[in-house]
């Protein structure tokens, strides 16, 4: 039964890799910036899943810690990229930026 679980994990890891490869296609050929951001975000989620499965495959569950870190970093990176491309800088306080946004629109 251990063997069956092992094969199950290896199979799902391979399918996760296939999904990541498809997302890389969108990342390279995305016509707009937001397609790329979307692809990077989704790719990061799949990387977290792959890390979890991989940590159980090689029998070292410590790898799950790295997956936690990666999940947090992925979210923060997405928000930071979006904020940077919206305001052209990262040094914007949200109250001021909201006022400026209402002035502009």
């Amino acid at each position, binding site marked *: 039964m251990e063997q069956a679980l092992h094969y199950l994990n290896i199979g799902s890891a391979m399918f996760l890799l296939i999904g990541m490869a498809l997302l890389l296609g*969108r990342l390279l050929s995305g016509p*707009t910036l937001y397609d790329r951001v979307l692809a990077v975000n989704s790719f990061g989620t799949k990387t977290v899943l792959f890390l979890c499965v991989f940590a159980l495959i090689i029998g070292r569950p410590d790898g799950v810690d790295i997956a936690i870190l990666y999940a947090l970093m992925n979210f923060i990176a*997405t928000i930071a990229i979006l904020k940077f491309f919206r305001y052209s800088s990262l040094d914007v306080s949200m109250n001021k930026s909201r006022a400026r946004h209402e002035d502009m629109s």
Partner: protein
Amino acid sequence: MNGDLLHMLQFATSAILMAGGVFFVIAGAVGVLRLPDFYTRMHAAGMTDTLGAEMILLGLIVQAGLSQTSLKLALIAFLLFLTSPTATHAVVGAAHHAKLKPKLGKYRAPAPGEVPKVKTKPKTKPKTRAKTKPKARAKIKAKPTPRKRAK
């Protein structure tokens, strides 16, 4: 014997959950690659990512049993459950704010501050189109002007 049955049950539950999660992950990836428009791609990616991730992580939790590892996996599942829809919402909001146009036929998405106008015009039959078109155009032109003056 009893332990064997329990292991079978563990394997079956884990296999079902992980197969479903992998299906959703692959479906989301194919949708992101193949759909024609940013917003439809986002629609494919956002929900399948959350559900697929939750299912795969639940399958791994079933495999790991009651241990520290399953606690960490549950923590990851919780974090992804919070952050993945938030990130989706942020990306779509940024694209909408940047006035990225969806690929549509006649209809256009409302700009960020705008109240969407709904045209409730019945579709004309293709044969009688030539006759009814000028009237319909006149109706459309006549409608928006009083609204703008009222504002």
